[in-house]
């Protein structure tokens, strides 16, 4: 709320924004486990969103957060795109978990994405469940969309972002930034809306989902769909949703976010102490004897408090469909033919989900297209999740690239 005031204060010439703001959105339909209240600014898109699947989605709402102030010529905006299970709470507390913003180490006053200099925007993606329209939202007939929600793509998410930029009066971003699925959105925005950004920073990401990526997602989706409480996706308002399936999906995915070395370092074969203080031991049963089991179970369960199972299905599908070269006639370089932006691609040596070869391939394609591109593989022990964690070299690169 005060952020909105800052934005107007920073830009006295700005026309009134067509935003419903401030607002507390409380989704009327219970999610997988609980209603998700979202204290965000929201924009109701004035036009329907044309989707890659051929539909036109009406009454799309975009929930977003902003940090810092937009300057007078509106040239200092940075759009940060979040990952699969991320949200718009980039640098402010999550309304459900109360946890600090997911990229607080990177975004804030004096930080690499410096909110003293930049107006930073983060929007909940289309299909998600923290205020932006998704399968848990209400369809025109008054019932939740559930599985009637159209299958969306990364480019559809980006169309939502661009509509938000239009509403904010931002013709051109200083940069679009994202890790993992956020990186896919950054690439898609730079490729499909080349006039809308001066730079794209893509971290631990890929230009297309590999068979292995799709396979892991399919395991997650099948876990959700195998939960009897999923009820063909029509679980809203019928008590608890498919918590168990969603938790298993999260557990499987979480393994892909870590490195073997990191897991060994953190857990090894250590046994888990019992809640009553009994030292850990092999129980010759199927309790969470090992710390790694206990950790994954906790990750799975806590995830269901903040995420909608159907959103998980839709967003993983969007990621699986992502193939930027395919969208542009099969040659990745052609995707960037019209781009004048600067690009920076960063991979991590322990990330086996989107390994370095993916980023290097994008860099080669950008070279072939004549774009200004930087690429590097940083060393960090945390696997794919390195982009969220303490990697000082990444901080320097982000700060330097954004200039």
């Amino acid at each position, binding site marked *: 709320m005060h952020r909105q005031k800052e934005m107007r204060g920073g830009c006295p010439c700005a026309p009134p924004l067509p935003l419903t703001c401030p607002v507390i959105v409380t989704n009327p339909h219970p999610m997988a486990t609980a209603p998700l209240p979202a204290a965000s600014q929201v924009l109701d898109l004035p036009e329907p969103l044309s989707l890659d699947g051929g539909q036109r989605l009406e009454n799309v709402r975009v929930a977003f957060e902003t940090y810092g102030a937009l300057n007078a010529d509106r040239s200092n905006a940075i759009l940060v795109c979040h990952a699969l299970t991320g949200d718009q709470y980039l640098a402010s507390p999550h309304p459900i978990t109360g946890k600090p913003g997911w990229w607080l180490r990177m975004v804030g006053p004096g930080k690499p994405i410096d909110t003293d200099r930049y107006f930073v925007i983060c929007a909940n993606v289309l299909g998600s469940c923290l205020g932006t329209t998704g399968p848990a939202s209400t369809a025109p007939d008054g019932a939740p969309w559930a599985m009637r929600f159209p299958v969306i793509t990364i480019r559809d998410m980006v169309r939502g972002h661009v509509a938000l930029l239009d509403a904010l009066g931002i013709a051109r971003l200083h940069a679009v930034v994202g890790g993992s699925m956020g990186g896919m959105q950054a690439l898609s925005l730079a490729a499909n809306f080349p006039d809308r950004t001066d730079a794209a920073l893509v971290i631990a990401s890929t230009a297309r989902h590999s068979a292995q990526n799709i396979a892991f997602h399919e395991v997650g989706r099948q876990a959700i769909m195998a939960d009897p409480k999923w009820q063909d996706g029509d679980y809203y308002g019928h008590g608890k949703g498919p918590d168990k399936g969603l938790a298993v999906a999260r557990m499987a995915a979480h393994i892909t976010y870590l490195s073997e070395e990191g897991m060994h370092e953190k857990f090894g074969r250590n046994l888990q102490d019992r809640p009553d203080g009994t030292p850990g031991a092999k129980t010759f049963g199927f309790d969470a004897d090992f710390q790694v089991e206990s950790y994954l179970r906790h990750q799975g369960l806590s995830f269901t408090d903040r995420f909608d199972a159907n959103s998980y299905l839709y967003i993983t599908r969007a990621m699986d469909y992502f193939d930027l070269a395919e969208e542009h006639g099969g040659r990745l370089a052609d995707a960037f033919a019209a781009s004048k932006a*600067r690009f*920076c691609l960063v991979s991590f040596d322990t990330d086996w989900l989107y390994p370095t070869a993916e980023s*290097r391939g994008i*860099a*080669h394609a950008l*070279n*072939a297209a*004549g774009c*200004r*591109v*930087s*690429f*590097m*593989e*940083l*060393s960090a022990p945390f696997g794919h999740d390195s982009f969220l964690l303490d990697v000082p*070299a990444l901080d*320097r*690169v982000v*700060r*330097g*690239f954004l*200039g």
Partner: protein
Amino acid sequence: MSGALRPDLAIIADRVGAGARVLDVGCGDGVLLGALHDKGCDARGLELDAHNVAECVARGLSVIQGDADADLAFYPDGSFDYAILSQTLQTTKRPDKVLDELLRVGRRAFVSFPNFGHWRVRASLLWNGRMPVTRLLPVAWYETPNIHHLTINDFRAHVEDRGIVVEGAWFLTGDQLTGASAANFRAEHAVFLISR
């Protein structure tokens, strides 16, 4: 010569005009790239060491992590006015192919290398019978990255064989330019400007 640059880099920086498109292969921490960028060139780099790449990007330069042997192939023909390979030729697996690639992606190339024909190197081999460790070749034989030592005369013969034109040549001893006469004996270091 440009102020703080190493002499061989200053020779190159002074001869690349503002607005030129330049690829510095093996750009290190981006000293030359930065100087070229500052004078208005579209300067890009290729560098093996991730830490160096990160330093370059932190300085606002466009640099790709990669190596001369493998990654030049991904640049289109004639993408650059100049390709630069400073103090790197002798570390590549196939210097001949790297030179071909430099002159494919660049209309011209600056190539600099330490001269293995310098009298100190010859003396070290002749009198001590040991692989030389000198100011420009400071690393012992077993850990040197320099796997393809060459002399100025080797370079001249090679480019002549390949029909490559030498547009300019500069020879250095210490930080001083020296004449072309007996350069293969007297110069520690050479910079060539070549084209097809």
